[in-house]
């Protein structure tokens, strides 16, 4: 073949599937590989963000640590910061069940039921 003659090759990439991530059962073994909940893009509905608070004073902010090493201690320091600098903000530390990738609907219901006004989740990595 001549050195400058042209070839046609296949694109090696996958195609976007419209299916995102993995949703893990809270009771699952972190080592298990689980099937994803399919979210075909035709069924995706955009989710608007929750309305913002006008101010944090007088509000209850949940500090949700995701289980990653250091998260709990980070949230403790965050709580201390609020105590020192914004004592009018009530903070509640909670641990999210399962791994850092696991949903925890019970915790979200607890936050809503107990009049939680906001939540900070962290940390990753």
């Amino acid at each position, binding site marked *: 073949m001549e*050195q*400058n*003659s*042209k*070839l*046609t*090759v*296949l*694109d*090696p*990439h*996958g*195609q*976007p*599937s*419209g*299916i*995102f*991530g*993995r949703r893990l059962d809270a009771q699952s073994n*972190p*080592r298990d*590989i689980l099937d*994803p909940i399919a*979210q075909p*893009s035709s069924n*995706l*509905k*955009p*989710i*608007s*963000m929750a*309305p*913002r*608070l*006008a101010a*944090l004073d007088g509000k209850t*902010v949940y500090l949700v640590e995701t*289980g*990653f*090493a*250091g*998260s*709990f*201690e*980070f949230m*403790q*320091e*965050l709580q*201390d*910061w609020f105590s020192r*600098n914004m004592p009018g903000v009530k903070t509640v530390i909670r*641990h999210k*069940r399962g791994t850092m*990738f696991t949903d925890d609907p019970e915790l979200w219901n607890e936050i809503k039921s107990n009049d939680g006004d*906001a939540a*900070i989740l*962290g*940390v990753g*990595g």
Partner: protein
Amino acid sequence: MERDARARGTPLRFGFPPYPVVGMSRAVLRQYIEGNDPITSKPFMREVIEVLTSPLTDKEKHPTITPKPRRPRLLASDTAENLYRQFVENGWTDGLPIVLPTEERVAEMLAGTDHGPQELVGRMLVTTHQEKMEYTVEKVAAIAVMAGARPEHFPVILALAASQEPSMPSSTTSWGRMAIVNGPIRNEVGMNCGTAALSPFNLANSVIGRAWTLMSINFGDARAGENFMASFGHNLNYNNMCCGENEELSVFEPFHMQKGFRTDESVVSLFRGWNVLNFGIGPAKEMAHLISTFGSMGTSITFIVDPLVAKNLRAEGFRTKRDACKWIVENSHVPAGHYWQGQMQSGFAAGLAKQGVEPFASWAKLPKDALITPRHSPDDINILVVGGETNPMWITTDFTYTQSVAIDKWRPKGGLHRDARPLRMPVPLACKDGACGIPEATPSAEPVTAGD
């Protein structure tokens, strides 16, 4: 993360404290919180308060979904040199030379299976939040061509693709993988299960393991620093310790049979972990002692043992691999105080203990000198028999078994599609009686006695 959030119509607000958080003292974490976001340079807590209180933008109130565009089947025609440069410069390779996936070469590879080119094989991602990329038999064939595989290897590569597991899941901790093949296909395609099986002396081992990583890069859409965040990466990613289990020299049942497959079925089993920790020699108690010194947060240990080690374990009285694993688990002890000192244990297992997850919850209440068995189930230990009996040794990995995938469904019904002259590297010298190359001893005229 922001891009993938837009793709599914979910606006996100977030802030970054400095990194890492794991292992940092409370004093350092306090400095993080009182300091600046290293990405935006803004005071971190000002950002946190703004995230919670600044009004939503129009885009945040009315998010739209921005789907990723579908890619054309073919790249624009160009010279081989320019196409190769395109593959390298776009990060579509593993840095080693590839075979360009022309239509002709891909068509030849597709003869390695009866499954149609447009059949969906699976979907893959390297992080949990991103959009999965889906791939067909034809796409896997393109990857197999790039890896330098031949059609006879294609059923194994399709099985790896069907696992939907990337060889390089993204973690800042830098994961490595292992792919072990059992069953007749090992010998049919010339895989090496014996001497130097884990070294670069075998074409099938090399190209099959490599194809898994090229799939992960292109199907998992892995981009270092963007969504692949391994701090230093892992050299195992190049080939994923791909080899066959030495069923012929093993005295134990093959690994795939432990997972419910028949001996005549061909299967690839996948493992994930961080390290090849060390090598060892000696009886089962040495294995138990060794793993008691390693930290555990619920991860497994996978021993790769030479067939001589398997024979020694059998001679010790272990009838099956599981018998040996059970004994190793029960005899691997560590004081609770020592266990909880480990960074991984205090960081991760402690969280499970707080949630009441056993056995961590009970271990957290024990006195420091109480002995615990850090691996609490024989299922936490795997034994794979690989090697050529040149040394009765094993290597210890912290690899966890993830799944086994059947290969046979991808075979052509008419039999593996072989080249007229199958391509093989030199086969390692091996002889059953262990006398390879050693000249026969000439009997001496007089017997040798002690004191001579």
